[in-house]
């Protein structure tokens, strides 16, 4: 997060983290999206922090953009951390022979994917900043295409096309390796 540092940012991060973790826990239990979807979570975070924010349509949009950025930042930070651990980072890691060790290895793969995606997204952003935001809002923020269009002040069909191309290109880039 750059530029818009406010005292609430730490709380935004902290709450966003909690939400992501809850989402993640639901994935693990196999009932993702039952009662929690990312948009609902962002709305909830907003409701909780709303008292400290200005209440205007502009501030709601600003908040959503910040939330998407926070989600990306948290996931990428976490992925970086996981990846560092895999490479024999700074902590003595014990490999338990319990039933969860499979998940451990898979998570490293997920972490590397996320890091690669983040790097590819940086390049996409330099090619077309608005398209970079589409990916950030839709994928990392979990906003729908319609919400993303509102947040960018453009049409749904435009965002739809931008997303499809971006998704294909980023996926292709991930397949290319670093």
């Amino acid at each position, binding site marked *: 997060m750059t530029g818009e540092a406010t005292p*609430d940012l*730490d*709380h935004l*991060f*902290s*709450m966003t*983290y*909690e939400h*992501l*973790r809850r*989402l*993640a*826990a*639901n*994935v*693990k239990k196999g009932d*993702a*999206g039952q*009662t929690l979807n990312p948009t*609902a979570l962002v709305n*909830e975070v907003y409701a*909780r922090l709303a*008292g*400290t924010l200005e209440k205007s349509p502009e501030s709601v949009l600003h908040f959503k953009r910040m939330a998407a950025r926070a989600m990306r930042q948290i*996931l990428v*930070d*976490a992925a970086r*951390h996981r990846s560092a*651990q895999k490479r024999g980072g*700074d*902590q*003595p*890691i*014990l490999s*338990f022979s319990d039933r*969860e060790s499979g*998940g*451990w290895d898979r*998570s490293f793969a*997920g*972490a590397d*994917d*996320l890091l690669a*995606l983040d790097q590819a997204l940086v390049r996409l952003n330099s*090619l*077309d900043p608005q398209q970079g935001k589409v990916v950030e809002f839709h*994928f*990392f923020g*979990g906003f729908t295409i319609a919400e993303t269009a509102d947040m960018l002040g453009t049409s749904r069909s435009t965002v739809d*096309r931008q997303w*499809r*191309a971006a*998704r*294909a*290109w*980023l*996926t*292709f880039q*991930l*397949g290319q390796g670093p």
Partner: protein
Amino acid sequence: MNEKGTLDAAAWARIQSLFHEALSLPEDERAAFLERLTEEAPLVLANLRGMLAVDAGEASVMDRGLAAAAGSVLEGTAPRIAQFGPYRTESILGRGGMGVVYRAVRRDPDARVAIKVLRDPFLSPARQERFQREQQILTRLNHPAIARLYEANTLEDGTPYFVMELVEGTTLVDHCRATGADLYERLDLFRQVCRGVLEAHRHAVIHRDLKPSNIMVTREEASGTARIKLLDFGIAKELRDPTTDVTQTEAELRLMTPAYASPEQIRGEQIGVATDVYSLGVILYELLTGRMPFDLSRLSPGQAEACLLTAEPEKPSIRALRGEEGGLKPVLVPGNQDWQDLDAICLTAMHRDLKRRYASVEVLLQDLDRFFQHEPLMARPDSTSYRLGKFLKRHTRDVVAVALVAIVLAGLTAFYTWRLRLARDAALAEAHKSARIHRFMLDLFEDGEGAGPERSLTVAELMDRSVAKADAFDADPEIQSSLYQTLGEIYRSLGKLEQAEQLIARTLAMRKARLGVDHPDTASSLTSLGLLRQAQDKPGEAEDLTRQALEVLRRHFSKDHPRVAEGMSALGFVLADARKFEEAIGLLEGAVAVLARKGERPVYALALERLANARALNGEYALSEAINERLLALNESLFTTKHPNYADTLINQAWNHRMQGHFDKAERLYRQALEINLHYHGDQHLVTASNRALLGGVLEHLKKYDEATLHLGKALAIRKRLLGPHHSRVAVTLNGLANVALNRGDYATAEAMYKETLVVYRGAERPRPDWIGTGLSNLGSLYYRQGKYGLAERHAREALASYAKVLPPDHLEIAIVRTKLGVFLMHQACYVEARRELIHAYETLAGKPDPNAFWLAFAGSSLDDVLAVLEVAESQ
């Protein structure tokens, strides 16, 4: 081919345009379309082909969505840390919102523990603070129903963790389901939960996340009894400052579990003890019926919240008719008449309206007790709780007042209301059991003792409010006098002696008028006033009052009754401070003997502490040391080794070491205590200042002058700021700094400081001859160092005269000053006189059951010198 470096915005635009064009074609025409693009740059083509190839697939991280991405890096990926200090991890017990909990083992001595480590600490400082707060809260809580904290530390990379009691068992609901627990077993477990929560409230901690998965049931190995342990104080909150609006920022860092959250929590309003009462109500509902009060499973979070805020729960008895859910059977068959009471208790506990809900866990517990004893409930319509609720209505916006008023006043009110239904005499005897309320109040405020301005301001506000509330009780003088006395004692422990005086004196007057002088309650007020006089430095009055109280108590109870022992303990304490050691120690020994068998542990601990202190004051350091060892063991079980009470005993014990010349042992204990006190009280607290001053004194003996000056200097600054420049403690600290200056050879500083010390001592409201004696004796040492032997001798003699006013002739301090005097005389060639002083000193020192090694050696060697000189003189 490297596409990455060369792709630019124009090429990217071209790629996208071709991409969308290709997608608009039927799939079987796309290959031909690509064939025709012979004019395009290879880079554009390569990207286009790649994108089209993956467009149809569903393979990448992009398609699995945010939740899956979060799942892959945030869940199931806890760092598996092999070693925390001496602990080796064995498995993962759980993953909570804040951290991961490991099961770990330590060899030698064998110990199994749970270790909680903050997950992803790099993500946000707010989470680190919250984790730290949980640890601090656990440090304060010590109760069989709350998992104990053993130690806290950080990994090399700064990740914080703490080591806790390992709780192995099943969650509350699972336990009841598996064992088929009946009504009484379930309610017994529930009451244990309530008592654990109450303990937290007594330390002004609100749990805020009570739910069955945070409540474990373990089995005691020996008896097989089921025991409750509360876990996860991760979002617990401390009630401290009534002025801070906590609702927005820190309060909602983490979401509560909606099903157990109170309406005020959901609305983001201020919360207090009643919030936990609500969650307890929901848990009770689940235990009674086997079902949740509301079915939220098909609702969105918004709908769930609306439901919790508006829907009325069905009566548990009705809900139980719907049959079991998840295998936990309803606790009673339909139609059982106990349902009526259980409905009332449960729905009162989880009442949406704060005014109608039980005002505290204590009141809820009392109603459960009444249920067991088949007495009318407060929760039943038109009951006291409703009236009480009205009484408390004005205070519901004020969290701290709610905590205070709800727990204490409500507890007392409920107690006395209930009591009226019983025979008056029996009730009066019972009333003394309400001493626990009393004690709770004192415990609650002990933290504030000598607090810095910020917190004492808060406490002062609270106290003023509480007094105002007590004033409103004038219809029932009995409650009112209990409250005044309690509040007065709190003021005393806060050092606000004038306010204490007003309230305690008022209580005494009320009780004398209503009950007469010869009544145990009046005696309790007399003791209270006596201890206040003690704090006011009026030992004569303190002795009269506590003695009078003891006489009354002895008339009403047998001589081995704990209340008599308490009276002995108070008088013994007062007498010891007045240097009447023989009687003091006799009384305290007697009190300890009774309380060891019959007393409440804290009361027993207090008597042991007083006895140890009396022995130490009397110079019997080895005996005091032995008592303190007992007290340390007791305090470790009563509190923890991180608790300030433990630190207090360490400090007393260090003094015994110090006075026996074991400075290195003393240093170690003072440092151990300082660590606890810094952690608990912070750096600007009088307790910490006192700890530093003592450590400084020992460091001076160990010739670590720089460090000694540092600690004493900090202590002096805090004491001057908080106590004013003329306080005796300021003088004591000055004296310590002067000693260091003296030993460093900085005589000018030392002399100025010693003299300033004496001015403070002599200017005290009631000068203490023994302190003045020490000041004079030290000044004597200074002049001796400077070779001013005559001046040194004069000061030693003055010191001796001053000591003689209050100390017995064979007291250690007198022996020390006589040793000094002997040495000063020797240097003036007054050998015969010197010999007399030194022999007397040496014999006194050697005759002690636990001789002071340093002074004994010093007196001995000086005496040898004098004797050698005299021998030469006589042989000539």
